[in-house]
């Protein structure tokens, strides 16, 4: 399923601290490979490998500017992954808020508790 593949690539891309740091840097603006490699003690080919993973996941894209070829963040794919988890969490949280209310009711009515105690 197409969207399932998107999620897999996104999560795999995010499961690496260097790639997360690259995304954080690109969130502040586009940057070239040289600029991105600077904070890491890593060769440019090594950084390029990470960039390929991020590109394949659709999380970054290359601005076709002949001389510099900077990379930029593509927020939509990241939002998709975040939204997916958030939807899941909301489903559970709605139930658990109702459970909170039930647990409170069970604890503030001692006579009712006596009847349901086994």
């Amino acid at each position: 399923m197409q969207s399932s593949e998107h999620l897999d690539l996104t999560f795999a891309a995010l499961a690496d601290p260097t790639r997360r740091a690259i995304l954080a840097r690109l969130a502040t603006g586009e940057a070239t490979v040289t600029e991105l490699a600077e904070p890491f003690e890593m060769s440019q080919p090594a950084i390029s490998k990470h960039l390929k993973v991020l590109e394949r996941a659709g999380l970054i894209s290359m601005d076709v500017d002949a001389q510099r070829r900077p990379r930029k963040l593509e927020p939509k794919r990241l939002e998709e992954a975040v939204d997916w988890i958030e939807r899941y969490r909301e489903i559970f949280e709605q139930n658990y808020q109702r459970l909170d209310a039930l647990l409170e009711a069970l604890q503030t009515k001692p006579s009712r508790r006596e009847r349901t105690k086994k």
Partner: protein
Amino acid sequence: MPKPAEVTLPSDREVRVTRTFNAPRQLVWDAHTKPELLQKWQGYDGWDMPVRDMDVRVGGKYKWRWRSREDGKQFGFSGTFTEVIVPSKIVHEQYYDQGDMDFAMPVGDPCIVSLELSEQNGVTTLVCNLKFASKEARDDAVSTGMTDGMEYSYTRLDDTFKAAA
């Protein structure tokens, strides 16, 4: 005020939900295992829970069904309990019961749900782990038609990506 639920993804086919409750563990256990309590909190806005059969013991079965107040359509889950340690652990299979819904999940291996409860100083921690049969099953589970606000269409998303490409 309890902290909201936290969701993590321990593997590519699991979802883990952790939540604390300001209540003794026995009460949280009861809320998960007694049908008359379960139907008061488990479900979806706009849906009633007409079927909530629970035989909470190893080898016992359960069956849950929800019915929409809007159009009467039903769906649910059912399965067998494979581990029951009162009041700290339940493990059960979870098969999706399509009922009247358009949404289908691939029939095959069930999702394995495990619930673990622990208590400290009157606060109970619940860890709910769902292990799906596959990555796709896990991802599809989010898009089951539930409350109106939660309804999500992968088709629409695919179209959005195609349009953006």
